[in-house]
């Protein structure tokens, strides 16, 4: 079947606006991860879902960031009152069970630009 998909592929917004980024994981994958990739940086962990619950939200950089997952499938990452430092590529990944040795399958990413 299809791999992980993300939408939009590109998003340009003005400082102060809210944005929603969407991730569709591989069907049947229970674990879902969000990462942020800034220019010249590695992948910064944001949040991890096991089913619909998020056991680890420690990577969310501020309370402007939130994420939810419904029906154990689609996830939405919301950034409120965007700032220029939020500009980055946001990657989503899913894996079958969420144990440490499971391979993560990545989406193509959403490139966010905050003007």
């Amino acid at each position, binding site marked *: 079947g299809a791999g992980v998909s993300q939408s939009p592929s590109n998003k340009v917004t003005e400082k102060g606006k809210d944005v929603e980024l969407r991730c569709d994981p591989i069907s049947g994958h229970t674990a879902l991860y969000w990462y942020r990739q800034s220019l010249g940086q590695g*992948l910064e962990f944001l949040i991890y879902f096991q089913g619909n619950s998020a056991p680890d939200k420690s990577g969310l950089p501020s309370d402007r960031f939130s994420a939810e997952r419904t029906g154990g499938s689609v996830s939405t990452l919301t950034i409120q009152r965007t700032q220029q430092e939020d500009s980055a590529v946001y990657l989503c990944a899913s894996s079958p069970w969420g144990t440490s040795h499971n391979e993560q399958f990545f989406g193509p990413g959403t490139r966010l630009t905050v003007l």
Partner: protein
Amino acid sequence: AQRVTQPEKLLSVFKGAPVELKCNYSYSGSPELFWYVQYSRQRLQLLLRHISRESIKGFTADLNKGETSFHLKKPFAQEEDSAMYYCALSGRTGGFKTIFGAGTRLFVKA
């Protein structure tokens, strides 16, 4: 603290030369180590994981717990190996959160 360090941002080698991409980690407990690769215009994908003890595309990586390292090696680099390589770790201590290094860009010259 859990940390993955890739000391080289860029590594440039000639085709046919050996290549080693360094990865050191800091972790309390028994980590799972991975190498992920991103080729130009492609998605990030798993290259290999230490638990499988496999060789993929000629690459191998050995977990050295004494030196807390997981270096990626290939005896003869090919042009198609040019890509961005990320070392990553996961494990129970971190609640299965995966920590990635900053990445090393490998450039294999003809």
